[in-house]
C-alpha cells in the first residue's frame, strides 16, 4: 500500500529544511557555475571557430552543455551518497527500519523537496538569465519542452535508483571507496553529461547505448537541442522507462538484501 500523504510530508519537510541551510544552496550553485565555466570553455576551444562538428552546430553544443550542467545541479541536490553510507556505518539506518515507511521511497520524496527548493531559488533564476543573454538555442515547440521535462524527470529517477543501490553496497562491503570512484566515473562519462555520445569512438558509443546511464543526461539534453526528434523521441523515452524500471528493481533487490542483513545482525 502506498500512502502518498505520508511521503509528501517528507517532501515538504525537506523543502523547508533546505530553506534553513541557505549557505549550502549558494555554495552548491557556486561550484556548479565553476564547472559550467570549465565545460563551456572546453567546448568553445574544441570547436575553435568551427560552425559545426558531428552534425551539431556550436550554439547547439553550447546549449547541450548548459542544459547538462543545469541537470547535474538538479541531480546533485538530493541526499548525497556518503550520507547514506555514513548512516549505514554508524548504524543509524536501523532506526529508520523500525519506522513504518519504506526507506528508499522516503529518501526519494525527501529529495523531491530539496531539489525543488534548489531549482526554484538558485538554478532557475540563474539559468534563465543565461538563456536570455547567451547565444543558446531553445526548443521551438512546447511539445519539445514537455518531452524534455518528462525525460529529465525519468533520468532523475534512474540516477536516484542506481546511486542509491550503490550507496547501499556499504551494507555488504566495509570499504566502497574504489567501487564508488569507478561508478562515478562511469556515470559522468557514459551518461554523456560532459561529452555527447555522438562524439564517442564508435565502439564506445555502442556500449554507452546499451547502458542505463545515457538516460540520465544524454537523452534529455539531446531532446532539448533537437538532436533527436519525432518518433525517435518516443523510442528514447521508451528506453528510459525500461531502464527506470530495471534500476528500480535493482534498488528493490539490493534494499531487500540489505535490510535483511540488518535484521540478522540485530541492527
Amino acid at each position: 500500500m502506498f500512502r502518498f500523504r505520508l511521503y509528501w510530508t517528507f517532501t515538504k519537510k525537506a523543502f523547508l529544511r533546505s530553506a534553513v541551510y541557505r549557505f549550502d544552496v549558494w555554495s552548491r550553485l557556486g561550484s556548479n557555475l565553476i564547472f559550467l565555466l570549465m565545460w563551456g570553455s572546453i567546448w568553445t576551444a574544441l570547436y575553435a571557430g568551427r560552425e559545426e562538428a558531428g552534425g551539431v552546430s556550436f550554439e547547439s553544443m553550447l546549449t547541450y552543455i548548459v542544459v547538462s550542467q543545469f541537470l547535474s545541479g538538479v541531480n546533485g541536490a538530493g541526499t548525497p551518497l556518503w550520507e547514506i553510507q555514513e548512516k549505514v556505518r554508524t548504524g543509524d539506518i536501523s532506526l529508520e527500519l523500525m519506522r513504518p515507511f519504506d526507506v528508499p521511497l522516503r529518501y526519494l520524496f525527501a529529495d523531491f523537496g530539496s531539489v525543488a527548493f534548489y531549482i526554484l531559488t538558485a538554478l532557475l533564476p540563474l539559468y534563465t538569465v543565461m538563456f536570455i543573454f547567451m547565444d543558446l538555442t531553445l526548443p521551438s515547440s512546447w511539445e519539445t519542452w514537455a518531452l524534455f521535462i518528462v525525460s529529465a524527470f525519468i533520468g532523475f529517477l534512474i540516477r536516484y535508483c542506481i546511486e542509491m543501490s550503490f550507496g547501499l553496497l556499504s551494507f555488504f562491503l566495509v570499504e566502497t571507496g574504489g567501487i564508488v570512484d569507478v561508478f562515478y566515473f562511469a556515470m559522468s562519462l557514459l551518461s554523456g553529461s560532459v561529452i555527447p555520445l555522438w562524439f564517442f569512438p564508435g565502439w564506445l558509443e555502442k556500449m554507452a547505448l546499451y547502458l542505463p546511464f545515457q538516460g540520465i543526461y544524454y537523452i534529455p539534453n539531446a531532446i532539448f537541442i533537437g538532436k533527436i526528434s519525432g518518433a525517435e523521441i518516443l523510442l528514447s523515452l521508451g528506453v528510459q522507462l525500461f531502464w527506470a524500471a530495471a534500476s528500480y528493481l535493482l534498488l528493490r533487490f539490493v534494499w531487500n538484501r540489505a535490510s535483511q542483513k540488518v535484521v540478522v545482525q540485530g541492527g
Partner: protein
Amino acid sequence: MSVLKYFDLYFKLISAGVRAQLQYRFAFVMRIVGLITSYTGTAATMWIMLYQFQELGSWTFYEMLFLFAVAVLSWGFCIILFFHFRGLDTYILNGTFDRFLVRPINPFFHFMAMKFDVASFGQFIFSIGIFIWVSFELHLDWTVGKSLFLLLSVVGGILIQGGLLVMISALAFWTTKSEQFYWVAMFPARNLTNYPLVIYPKAVQWFTAFVVPFGFVNYFPAAVLLEKETPFFPENIGYFSPLVGIVFFAVAYYIWMLGLKRYKSTGS
C-alpha cells in the same frame, strides 16, 4: 627546537599514523585502486574529447596528459602533507583542537604532522606512469636541468595548493567552517587546472595566475617543459613556480598564525 629535531619528530609522528593505516590492508588497497581508476577516468575523458577534435587550445592529447600528471603528482604530495587541514573546523567544534596548543611545539607543525595519508601513493604511481608514457610519445629529452625544474615546480605546486588548504582551514578560526569551503571552492577550481588555462576567458586566466596562483601548479611549468606558448603571459613565466609557491605558502602560514591568535583570545 632545532629544524633537525622537528624533522625527527615529524617522522616519528607520521610513522605511527602509517602503521595504523596499514592495519586495514583491504581498505588501503581499495583506496589506491580507486584513486588510480578515477584519474585514469579523467585521462580517458580527455582522450575521447580529443578523439574527434585532435586539439584543445593547441594542446594535443599527450601534452594534456603531461599537464594533468604534473597536477596529480603535486596534489598527491599535497594530500599527504596538508589535506587534513580542510577539516580543522571539526577539531575546533569538537574541542579536540586544544591538544595542539598545550604541547611545547609549534601548533601548526603539530597539526600538520598529525596525519600522513599513505593512500596517495595512487597519485604517485599514476603520474610516474604517465610521465614515462608521454616522454616516449613526445620524445621528451630529460636533461638534468629539466628534471630538476620539474622537481622544483612540483614543490612549488605542493606549496601553492597546500597554502590554499591552509588558508581555507584558517577560515575556521573566524567562521568555524572550513571543510565546506574546500568542496565548493577549491575542489571545483582545482578541476579547472586539469585543462590548459589558455582555453578560459582572460579574466579567469589572470585570476588563476596572480590571485590564486593555480597556474603555477602545472600550466606554466608544463608550458616551459613542453615548449608551449602561454598567450597573455610573459614567455617562460613557469620558471617562477617555486618562488610563487614559497611566497604564497608564507602568506598562508601568516594568516593561519593570525587566526590562531584570534582563536586563543576567544578562549573556548
